[in-house]
């Protein structure tokens, strides 16, 4: 089994941090007989920015839903190691679409997770406003989602996921539908947020460039059946900024990751990646 530890130079955040969640032999078979995941072993450590990278059908979104508790594994276990019970309020989830309530204002959308926990509007206001400021959305709290651009909607979605101060942020291809300029900006802002708060991120993407730019660990997955193919440590220091984006180091890391991804796609028997 090719798993874990690309062993070379350690010193990245994840090698010292305690384990938060260990997936052991996790598999998921849907009722239609499709094996979405097979024997996935994966350790997520406190403070990781871990990307799940792979072609469509490799089960990366399924893995994310399992971690979120939105779905249960057919086999294997998810072992939450964090001290104290880690309930769902410790998980923030950002979907591929902004998934906002279209009738509610930006403020009310971000308030929602707190509201569901019984926090009144007035009590929630400081946290909501602070979160909106963190994602650079001050001043639009009264707008409704349709009045916002795609990037702004995604910022609201991130603010909503973060307003409960979760320890884990799960993101399912959150920026896939955005244009490149907006995506770069959101990447930078997300990293900034992550560095300030040091929560753990599991980030699903099919973009090599995005995963390398953001993560300290990239887990490459292969399809049919969905499985972990290989893992790469991205040995580049944070903060990463626009200078990093154009650096030779970044290019080299992207090439390295890309090669692994190509092998992962090749490894699928009779592979025909439809690029969907």
């Amino acid at each position: 089994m090719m798993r874990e530890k690309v062993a070379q130079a350690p010193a990245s955040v994840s090698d010292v941090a305690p384990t938060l969640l260990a997936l052991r032999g996790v598999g998921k078979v849907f009722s239609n007989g499709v094996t979405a995941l097979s024997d996935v072993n994966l350790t997520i450590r406190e403070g990781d920015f871990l990307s799940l990278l792979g072609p469509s059908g490799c089960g990366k979104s399924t893995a994310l839903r399992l971690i979120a508790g939105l779905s249960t594994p057919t086999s294997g276990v998810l072992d939450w190691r964090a001290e104290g019970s880690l309930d769902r309020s410790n998980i923030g989830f950002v979907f591929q679409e902004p998934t906002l309530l279209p009738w509610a204002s930006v403020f009310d959308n971000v308030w929602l997770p707190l509201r569901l926990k019984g926090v009144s509007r007035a009590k929630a206001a400081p946290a909501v406003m602070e979160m909106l400021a963190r994602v650079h959305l001050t001043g639009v709290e009264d707008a409704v989602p349709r009045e916002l651009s795609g990037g702004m909607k995604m910022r609201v979605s991130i603010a909503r996921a973060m307003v409960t101060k979760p320890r884990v942020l799960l993101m399912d291809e959150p920026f896939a539908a955005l244009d490149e300029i907006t995506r770069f900006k959101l990447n930078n802002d997300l990293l900034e947020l992550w560095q300030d708060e040091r929560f753990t991120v599991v980030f699903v993407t099919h973009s090599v460039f995005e995963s390398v730019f953001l993560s300290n660990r990239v887990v490459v997955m292969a399809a049919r059946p969905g499985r972990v193919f290989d893992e790469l440590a991205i040995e580049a220091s944070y903060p990463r900024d626009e200078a990093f984006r154009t650096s030779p180091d970044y290019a080299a890391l992207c090439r390295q990751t890309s090669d692994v991804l190509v092998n992962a796609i090749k490894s699928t028997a009779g592979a025909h990646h439809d690029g969907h």
Partner: protein
Amino acid sequence: MTAIDEGVLKLDPEEARRVRQERLERIGRWVLPLAIMILAIWSWDRICVWNAIPQYILPRPGVVLSTLYIDAGLLFSSLLVTLRITFLSLLLAVVGGVGLAVLFAQSKWVEMSFFPFAIVLQVTPIVAIFPLINIYVDNQTTKLLLCAWIVAFFPILSNTTLGLNSVDRNLRDMFKLNGATRWQQLRYLRLPAAMPYFLGGLKIAGGLSLIGAVVAEFVAGATGQSSGLASRIIEAGYRLNAPRLFAALFLISLTGILIFLVLSLISHLILRRWHESALKQER
């Protein structure tokens, strides 16, 4: 980008034509139907005069109008009776339709079990059910209400049920992740999501409750004391009082139009900020 001032803004011929076209359409939307209506009324009047049609067959529009004025006391008190049944039944249809829809939304099993009954109630012509209601129910108002309700509640029930069930899956997951209770999910997610559907049903139900009320009055054959516009029409028919018949008909149509406009306005006010249907075309 609101007012386009042609004096300042130099428009190319294509854009200028588009602006002219839009202005024409804006005016035409009001002027055309009005013109056709006036033309129709005028021809109606001419037909009566040229063919010397007697008043008890087809009264001239002017006669209908003056009858409306002369019989105003009688007609408007009847209109009030009909309106009372209409609005009460619409209210009950909203309460019953939304209530049942919420009940259905609680469990697929409940919906599967009871929805067919609602359909049976809907597809059976009310005129055919009425004799039964007539036997079982004594109170005149209750009879009429029940009739109008049966006609009006279905669009609200079926639309609201559809709305409650067509919530975005990711949003549902989001609520689940945040540990929302059943009630919270209903209150903050499913009911608001169903609002456009409900309002669509309400617009249909508004007209139907008027139709239901009038039909019920017809089949109840309620003549004499405490009677609505339908009985005025029946009565006028027997007496060959065509002007009054037309006047009553005019009032019913007018009421229907007003109900539709009011409900459309309510719908627009509620949805205007977020729903596609209520948004102005911006492109």
